[in-house]
């Protein structure tokens, strides 16, 4: 059975000082298990769309439903329990002056069960768990996260975000500050986990190759409006030239 997880109902986002709305006339729905790639030029409103979902922005008009509930009526705690956001900048994702282990304690959504087994067991578990994301992280549990490399930080942020998977994962160019090889690796890892853990995800990117290779649907924005939606067979058969033509 297909369930609609997220519904945008005529969303407008205005900013008084701006000529045109940041977002307008957004009607869209995301099914459970969808992996939506959001494309669009700089300033087209991709990040703003994600910020509306996680509650950092409030719509000027319209509403966003999580199942049947207005996302902006949920308590911040409840919303945070269902939705997790990662962005390209580490300070949005991690507590940089805290240790890796402290970040785990703060960011894992559901640490109670693991905590019962005691500190030693928790540390062993965490080392083993992090190995798949970046083996360098395993012996750095007591290190301040700000001292990790950018690639290690993003791998850690992803690892902690999906440890107890959220219903919705929002990824705002989370690989864009990484070198091409690390970015490709992290992107593949991300797609793997999303599929494996059946997480519903929205990802913004300027990497058209990622948009072609990953995701179940594409949502293209232009100047705050939906330009195109590509899904199903059309998404699978999309080539680079037509992507450029349809999405920018």
């Amino acid at each position, binding site marked *: 059975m297909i369930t609609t997880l997220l519904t945008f109902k005529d969303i407008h986002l205005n900013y008084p000082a701006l000529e045109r709305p940041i977002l307008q006339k957004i009607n869209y729905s995301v099914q459970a298990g969808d992996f939506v790639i959001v494309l669009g030029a700089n300033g087209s409103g991709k990040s703003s769309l994600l910020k509306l979902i*996680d509650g*950092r922005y409030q719509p000027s008009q319209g509403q966003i439903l999580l199942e049947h509930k207005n996302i902006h009526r949920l*308590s*911040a*705690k*409840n*919303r*945070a*329990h269902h939705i997790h*956001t990662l962005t390209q900048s580490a*300070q*949005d*994702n*991690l*507590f*940089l*002056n*805290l*240790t890796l*282990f*402290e970040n785990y*304690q*703060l*960011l894992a959504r559901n640490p109670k069960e693991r905590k019962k087994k005691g500190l030693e067991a928790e540390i062993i578990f965490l080392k083993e768990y992090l190995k798949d994301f970046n083996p360098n992280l395993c012996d750095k549990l*007591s*290190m*301040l996260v700000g001292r990790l490399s950018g690639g290690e930080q993003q791998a850690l942020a992803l690892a902690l975000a999906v440890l107890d998977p959220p219903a919705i994962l929002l990824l705002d160019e989370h690989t864009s500050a990484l070198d091409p090889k690390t970015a490709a690796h992290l992107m593949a890892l991300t797609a793997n986990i999303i599929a494996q853990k059946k997480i519903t995800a929205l990802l913004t990117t300027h990497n058209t190759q990622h948009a072609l290779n990953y995701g179940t649907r594409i949502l293209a924005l232009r100047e705050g409006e939906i330009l195109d939606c590509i899904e199903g067979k059309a998404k699978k058969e999309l080539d680079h030239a037509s992507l450029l033509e349809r999405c920018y």
Partner: protein
Amino acid sequence: MIGLFIATLTQALTLIPLALGINLSYTILRATDMTIDGSFVLGAGVFAQLVSLGVSPYLAFLAAMLAGALAGAFTAFLQHKGKVDALLAGILSSFILYSVNMAIMGRPNINLLNSPSLFSTAFAQNNLMGWSAVCALVLILALGFYALLQSRLGLYLRAFGDNPKLLARQGLNIETLRTLGFGLNNLLAAASGAITAQIIGYADINMGVGMTLVGIGAIILGQHLILPCIKTHYLRTRTELLSAFIGIAIYFFILNGLLRFNINPIYLKLMLGVLLALFLRAATQKAKLS
């Protein structure tokens, strides 16, 4: 020399709660909280006034700590509602507290030599008993503080100091954390003020001047000396507390040492100020390297 050590230890002891409070504001909440200059006097003043009105020293001590916590909560309130940054809010609070303290005390100085204190029965037996009682009280405060930092709340306070935005996105109420954090550090400063007043035998309206600076200098010095020796961060709460103890002890060791050289008291603050500047500089240089 033994006299120097004893003077150092006894003075450092009374300021350990203050150092713990500054550890909380400066290291954990990452704010320079100048309220402490005022809440130190507030603690001493409330205690002295209540005791001289005949209130039991136990109640007076609790009231002093509570008053300190309220002062800290006020600083947090200024930051939140007044949109003032932590440094300015603290300066503003300690400015206001000068009047408040004066109003509470009714005069610039209250003598306590003939009033009962928390330690008077112990000191009546002998000095060792007296100092043991002081030690015990400081230890209770330090252990309570340690337990708190080790708890989930302690972790939230640390996270608040590092990245309040991210913490708010986890759905936590950061204003509550701010109030708790600043309340607690000023509670500890007020406790120090009340203990100091009992040991020196009076409360004075000016006794808090420079306390924040002394505390910050001391804990930075302490961390500076200890951190290189200890690698693992699992123990960081313990390390922090230990460095607060050591830092404050070294500060008083130097202070008493200087006094013994018959330094003109007029120049004492100048020399201590230069010394603190050197501590701070040494610490920032090391931070660059690591």
